[in-house]
């Protein structure tokens, strides 16, 4: 009997191939989107679950929001030793930055390389990270100075081979010996080191905060209680004081750890959810199409149903028959969807910034089959029930021409589709508006024509008398000038201090500060509101220690907000006043020489203080003002000069414009995904409208013919046919408007600076869907209305 179903199904498909193709195509697209998103979602939720005892491992986080950093992983090494003493702790693991010092700029066979993402680790790494050693011994590396372990691809990059045990890399004043090679870390972990090295910790160093500490609790331990205990005992930051400590589950890090000091950029749960939501919408639209078209076409199968009933088929047999047809169709659509996925995967990977692959041997393919069955049954159940309940009597005695066709249900589905399409269009437009707006907000600094060289050791670029390197950089053809900054302009300063304003009041929490070179106002393109730029002509600008060894003074340029906080609503009045950093170990007097308009730093804070020559970090970013036409030449010159003068290799050089774009890349991605889904949704909805309209035109053929005979114009007939659909769209608009308003308002809350939602976007979206619906129906209606009525009436 199954074979018989199969025969009827395939022949019915063949006979009505247009309807069949529309159905399969629609479902394939919906399923392909769902498969892609499922791959992505599974990947996103798989982060770090492969690590040993992952569910019991937590990472220490400190709340740095005092200086606008949010929650960061950086913690003092001593917290590791403290935690080991606790009975709740089974084991703990430290991953420590080795700094961007000399040791990471190495040479091999005369060629210079920059070792990035090298970390020191405690030797128990294998108890915390599922890492496999390809050659050598990690334990040796993690216990012996001047040895190094590299990842496979890093070894290949430098040596061109993986068999590198015993090879050496020279650095200024020493060498690393390769003692281990490990396989590249998989993508689905928040860890991102490319090399491991021994790291010595000096317990007396109060500033040893470049550590990530992972704590494995015993199975019985209560993590909340332990978090509280550790928070009480944790080491305070020497300048920022006690920062609240929390424990973040290892498996949550991918979604929750977002600070700039993360090993790599994490994922965004909201974005994953948006993707899931969109794919569900697409599947729904495709299923609605399926339901709609199957029911519309069902009168063609009515006779078959009648006959089968007369021959003794029960209703349930018929339901099974039509269900198996839709499941068959859905399976076929799945096969097509899989090939679509293969085609789209590279593009999709670019879109979500992952390297996903479809592995048919995994349980995932089982899930695909299940999903396909589910969709087949979900979409097929109602039509199957509907078709199999046709009255056999009416069909067989020949008086059923066009019976009830569940019009209400089908109209509801069409309204839903219109709602989704309109809401998606509105969302897409507003998202794009918002992103364009973000790119256009005045940042308070200039991104155009600015080239930034990251992390150059201070001694080469940061001195009162222009260092040689800076001079040479300035002399490159096409470089107008350069200045030096203690943080990356699109990020936020990793340093804040409690200050005392000129009026003796304490600052409101730590104020972000940064060291900077001369001419910072000009170099960054800041807007000077009062006072002047830092200048070599004023010898007091550059940071200097006073005669007493624990005091210093420095020139400062502050933002308008900082001046306001200091109590100066007329910003010019603060020029010449002194702000003080009252740190008992080292007190600094800040002489305000200039006030600039607020600049936007990554965390949204607007108070910021530039201090000329202040040594708040050991590496500085050089911001050059250049002619962009000369970019390739300038880049080559920069790399060469830096290699010559500093023994730093492969420096990171970016146009500030690009860095700024990168800040919003995730938002841009999600907006692209929404755009693509929108087009797909519209396409599928039109497909559905087309199917429905074709059916409706067919059903009203006779009416159309009669009207024409009576003298109706073609256009009036087309409008008559389209009216039915436009009414449905109108209903869709009524649902779509509040829905999109609500969703978009929610999304916009993610941003500090938001666009206003404007009515025209809503109206345009509605107008667009209305117009294309009219066009779709009209394209069919036009043909019907132009047919000679005699042709149709003769057959009746």
């Amino acid at each position, binding site marked *: 009997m199954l074979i*018989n179903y199969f*025969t009827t199904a395939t022949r019915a498909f063949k006979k009505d191939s247009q309807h069949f193709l529309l159905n399969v195509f629609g479902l394939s697209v919906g399923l392909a989107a769902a498969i892609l998103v499922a791959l992505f979602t599974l990947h996103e939720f798989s982060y770090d679950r492969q690590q040993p005892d992952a569910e019991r491992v937590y990472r220490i986080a400190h709340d740095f929001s005092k200086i606008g950093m949010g929650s960061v992983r950086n913690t003092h090494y001593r917290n590791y030793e403290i935690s080991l003493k606790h009975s709740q702790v089974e084991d703990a693991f430290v991953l420590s930055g080795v700094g961007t010092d000399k040791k990471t700029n190495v040479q091999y066979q005369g060629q210079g390389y920059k070792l990035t993402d090298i970390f020191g680790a405690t030797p128990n790494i294998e108890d915390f990270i599922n890492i496999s050693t390809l050659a050598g011994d990690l334990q040796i590396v993690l216990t012996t100075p001047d040895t190094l372990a590299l990842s496979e691809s890093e070894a290949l990059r430098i040596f061109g081979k993986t068999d590198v045990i015993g090879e050496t890399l020279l650095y200024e004043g020493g060498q690393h010996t390769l003692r281990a090679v490990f396989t590249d870390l998989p993508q689905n972990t928040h860890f991102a080191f490319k090399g491991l090295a021994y790291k010595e910790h000096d317990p007396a160093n109060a500033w040893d905060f470049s550590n990530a500490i992972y704590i494995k609790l015993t199975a019985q331990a209560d993590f909340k209680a332990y978090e509280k205990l550790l928070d009480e005992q944790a080491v305070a930051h020497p300048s920022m004081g006690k920062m609240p400590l929390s424990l973040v589950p290892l498996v949550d890090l991918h979604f929750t750890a977002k600070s700039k000091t993360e090993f790599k950029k994490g994922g965004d749960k909201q974005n994953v959810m948006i993707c899931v939501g969109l794919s569900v919408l697409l599947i729904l639209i495709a299923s609605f199409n399926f339901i709609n078209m199957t029911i519309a076409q069902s009168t063609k199968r009515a*006779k078959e149903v009648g006959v089968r009933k*007369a*021959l*003794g088929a*029960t209703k349930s047999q018929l339901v099974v028959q039509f269900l198996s047809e839709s499941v068959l169709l859905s399976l076929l659509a799945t096969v097509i969807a899989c090939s679509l996925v293969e085609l789209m995967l590279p593009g999709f990977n670019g879109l979500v910034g992952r390297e996903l692959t479809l592995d048919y041997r995994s349980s995932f393919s089982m899930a695909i089959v299940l999903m396909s069955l589910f969709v087949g049954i979900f979409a097929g159940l109602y039509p199957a029930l509907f078709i199999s309940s046709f009255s*056999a*009597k009416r069909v067989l005695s020949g008086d059923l021409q066009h019976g009830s066709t569940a019009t209400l249900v089908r109209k509801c589905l069409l309204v839903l589709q219109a709602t989704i399409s309109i809401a998606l269009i509105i969302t897409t437009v507003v998202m794009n508006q918002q992103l364009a707006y973000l790119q256009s907000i005045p940042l308070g600094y200039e991104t155009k024509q600015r080239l930034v060289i990251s992390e150059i050791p201070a001694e080469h670029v940061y001195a009162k008398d222009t260092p040689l390197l800076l001079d040479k950089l300035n002399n490159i053809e096409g470089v107008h000038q350069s200045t030096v900054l203690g943080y990356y302009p699109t990020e936020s300063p990793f340093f804040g201090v409690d200050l005392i304003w000129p009026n003796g009041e304490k600052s409101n929490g730590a104020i972000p500060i940064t060291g900077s070179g001369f001419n910072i106002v000009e170099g960054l393109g800041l807007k000077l509101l009062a006072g002047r730029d830092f200048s070599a002509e004023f010898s007091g600008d550059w940071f200097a220690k006073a005669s007493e060894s624990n005091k210093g003074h420095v020139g400062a340029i502050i933002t308008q907000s900082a001046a306001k906080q200091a109590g100066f609503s007329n910003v010019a009045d603060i020029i010449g006043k002194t702000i003080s950093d009252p740190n008992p170990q080292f007190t600094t007097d800040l002489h305000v020489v200039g006030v600039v308009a607020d600049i936007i730093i990554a965390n949204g804070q607007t108070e910021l203080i530039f201090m000329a020559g202040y040594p708040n970090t050991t590496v500085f970013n050089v911001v050059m003002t250049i002619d962009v036409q000369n970019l390739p030449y300038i880049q080559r010159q920069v790399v060469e000069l830096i290699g010559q003068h500093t023994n730093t290799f492969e420096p990171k050089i970016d146009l500030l414009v690009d860095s700024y774009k990168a800040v919003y890349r995730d938002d841009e991605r999600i907006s692209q995904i929404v755009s693509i889904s929108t087009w797909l949704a519209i396409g599928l909805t039109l497909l559905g409208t087309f199917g429905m309209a074709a059916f409706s035109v067919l059903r009203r053929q006779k009416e159309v013919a009669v009207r024409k005979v009576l003298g109706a114009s073609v256009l009036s007939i087309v409008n008559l046919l389209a009216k039915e659909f436009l009414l449905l769209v109108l209903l869709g608009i009524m649902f779509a408007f509040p829905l999109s308003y609500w969703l978009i308002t929610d999304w916009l809350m993610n941003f500090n600076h938001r666009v206003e939602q404007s009515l025209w976007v809503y109206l345009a979206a509605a107008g667009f869907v209305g117009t294309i619906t009219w066009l779709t129906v009209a394209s069919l209606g036009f043909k019907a209305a132009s047919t000679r009525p005699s042709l149709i009436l003769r057959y009746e």
Partner: protein
Amino acid sequence: MITLNNLSRIYRTSDVETTALNQINLTVNEGEFIAIMGPSGCGKSTLLSILGMLDSPSSGSYQFNGEDIADYSEAQLAQLRKTSIGFVFQSFNLIDELTVYENVELPLQYLKISKAARKERVEAILKRMAIDHRADHLPQQLSGGQQQRVAVARAMVSNPKLILADEPTGNLDSKNGDAVMAMLRELNQDGTTVIMVTHAEKEGNYADRLVRLLDGQIMLDKATQTINKDEVA
């Protein structure tokens, strides 16, 4: 074999109520050949579909082989239908997607008869109907007469005790119509009960008994010979 008692069928649509059958009393004995006649819309098809259990009465009782089928479940009705009743329709109602052979085979499949046995029976009946050379054709490729022969073959293949035919010759020319009538007569002579709806007086004469309906009520129920006399008289 069949007893209808005060049987009525009322169709309710949103605004109108149609009494398609009104207080019908009818007894059909095994081996009878009955013709049902009447003007269009008088309820003939309704009666036939109730007899064939494709539709159920609004009131009154229907006994089949002495049992009231009112309480039968859908599955039981389907079972009874496939074992005991064969249908022939005016518009043939062959499944367009299936070949002649597959159409005729269908009732046997629902009866769960083995493949080999099916083949034997289908081939035999196609031969008997003289359309075996068209076994692999699709219905649209056949003439109306041929299609109706396939439909009769399909009705007969399961050896039902009752054949219900709704205007079986309505779409046929007189030659093909006569052939179908002859076939039904032949079946009846082999012992199958036949109930047939027809428009043509001439075809009424093939039957042993004539039931005339008007507005859902039986106006006349007589053996054909008597009618002929009446009409002559």
